[in-house]
């Protein structure tokens, strides 16, 4: 096949895959926007933001095979950066936060420029962190990345003049809507799909399957991992900005291990080898959580044991979900094929059977 034809085919597959996932999300969004209560719309927005988070994590962890417990650092940093830029100036003074470079203190940016700046700064931060962290052998890298989460936690908690400490920031404009979340979701999915099928993505996947073999066939694993790391941090940054401007107030606890784990569950249950995986996983986790949450405040009588409140029940259910996935289907629901590829496979299997029946 000639090079342009190959590129065209790739573009076709890419747009097909993005259209399928984007279409599914569009249906949910349009339904919520047209018929849903404001509470329901809020839940759908939260879901869309979590899709961006999970897809952002997939770009790095899915392609490299290194699970990152540190992506909340990027989500959090972006939330702080964009939040500080869009926050009304008087509120900055009220919360005693001081932006570096005096002129910024009185500037209020609108949502889009703040988002772009946050993406850029987080990209630079991620590139700086990539140097030491991705030098480590795989297993140590996982722990190193985890240490990054702890370091960021300490900084978010204590850098009073920038983060307002443990109290967090408040008073951000509520710029995140259900529709701009959907738009960013589709962008994130397109970026992740493009990266997965790109040369770099394929070389990384080769290194994921066999590090030694791919390195000896000339794959510069460390450099490519850094590329995936930075790209995935930038997508995670988008999630952070959306998250911050949906809630309009947040604190460092939003970026600790607990929320990290939720995103990891989405990724593992859906399957991290595909981009459809985190999307499906985020959907499942959201559905199950919403189903379980009402029971958290209920009480339970188990004969001798009486439980007043079931706080943490939804986390317990998440744990059960991820354990089931790990024991029964380690590659997650999607496995190694994207949703559109599964669909094409099913259609191919159904069609010949139907033709055979109709033939005399």
């Amino acid at each position, binding site marked *: 096949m000639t090079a342009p034809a190959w590129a065209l085919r790739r573009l076709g597959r890419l747009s097909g895959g993005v259209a399928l996932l984007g279409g599914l999300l569009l249906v949910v969004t349009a339904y919520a926007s047209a018929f849903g209560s404001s509470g329901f719309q809020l839940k759908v927005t939260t879901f869309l933001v979590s899709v961006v988070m999970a897809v952002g994590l997939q770009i790095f962890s899915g392609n490299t*095979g*290194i*699970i990152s*417990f540190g992506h909340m650092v990027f989500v959090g940093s972006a939330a702080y950066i964009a939040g500080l830029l869009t926050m009304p100036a008087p509120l900055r003074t009220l919360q005693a936060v001081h932006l570096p470079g005096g002129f910024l203190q009185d500037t209020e940016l609108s949502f889009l420029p703040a988002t772009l700046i946050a993406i850029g700064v987080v990209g630079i931060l991620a590139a700086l962190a990539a*140097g*030491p*962290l991705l*030098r*480590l*052998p*795989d*297993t*140590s890298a*996982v*722990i*190193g990345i*985890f*240490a990054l989460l*702890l*370091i960021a936690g*300490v*900084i978010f*908690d*204590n850098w009073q003049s920038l983060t307002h400490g443990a109290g967090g920031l408040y008073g951000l404009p509520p710029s995140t809507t259900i529709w701009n979340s959907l738009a960013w979701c589709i962008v994130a999915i397109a970026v992740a799909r493009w990266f997965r099928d790109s040369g770099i993505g394929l070389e990384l996947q080769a*290194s994921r399957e066999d*590090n*030694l073999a791919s*390195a000896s066939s000339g794959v510069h*694993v*460390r450099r490519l*991992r850094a590329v995936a790391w930075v790209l995935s941090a930038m997508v995670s940054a988008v999630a952070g900005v959306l998250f911050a401007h949906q809630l309009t107030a947040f604190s460092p606890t939003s970026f600790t*291990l607990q929320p990290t*784990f939720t995103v*990891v569950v989405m990724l*593992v249950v859906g399957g991290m080898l595909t981009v459809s995986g985190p999307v499906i996983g985020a959907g499942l986790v959201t559905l199950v959580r919403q189903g379980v949450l009402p029971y958290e405040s209920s009480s339970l009588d188990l004969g001798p*044991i009486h*439980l007043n409140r*079931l*706080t*943490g*029940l939804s*986390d*317990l259910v*998440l*744990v*059960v979900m*991820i*354990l089931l996935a*790990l*024991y029964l289907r*380690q590659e997650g629901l999607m496995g190694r094929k994207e949703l559109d590829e599964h669909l094409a496979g099913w259609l191919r299997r159904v069609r010949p059977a139907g033709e055979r029946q109709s033939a005399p």
Partner: protein
Amino acid sequence: MSASELVQQLVNGLSLGGTYALIALGLAMVFSIMGLINFAHGDLITIGGYVMWEMTSRGISWYATVPVAILAATLASVAMERVAFRRLRGASVITLLITSFAVSFFIENAFGIFISPRAQGIPVPPWLNEAVHFGSIIVPVVQVLTICVTLVCLVLLALMLNRTMLGVSMRAAAEDFQTAQLVGVRANRVVVTAFAIGGLLAGVASVLYIARSGSVQPTTGFDPVVKAFIATVIGGLGSLYGAVAGGFVLGFTEVAFSAFLPDTIVPFSDAFALVVVIGLLLVRPQGLLGRVSEVRA
């Protein structure tokens, strides 16, 4: 800083590092044999703590709770292997790690639901909180006890690993699990022993740790296990001596940072210690005592 203050800080570092070393040893032992970085190892400390709380709140003497807590941590560790990890033997390091995270969250949330998310006080004998005077040097009893107990544990463990058949087979399995199996080392026995010893050491660490904090809550094990994680990376993942060395390096680094940093930066001292550790790994990615066995990508 006077000489006596220096000695006090030294004792601080030794006792903190010793606690980390006890926990890190359990992590390193299991990792070297089956490639599992067991995040749920920290919850053994929590389990030991809740056993002590349950017993002391029923009026049982603290001294009686100590052996029971250690036994409980040991049994919990073995049970964890049987229930959660055995069916995943041979799975990738990442799969095992995520599983251990899930197990840890399960235990934490279960304690939160069935007992309480809030901290529960555990009364310790008053002599533990007193201080001993060596001339002008004042050292808390808990710290002296921690250092002594750590040393005893380390010596016993070294004897066990070097002088007994089981110990030798464990070292062989740590070196190369498959070859060890080929020459007749029983896989299950070695793995279960590693979990049992790890649980025992975690139980001991639990008693010492809780004697210092005086309370237990569902997240008690989080901080120590994270530190032990980092200790094992400093020392070189999978190296037992490395885990001990890493524990002490981390302990001393933390003490030094909180003692010598100016007051305004002290809240950041944990972050500084981690940055130093990452800096150390830049120079030696395989850790202090680790060997280069993985591919340098």
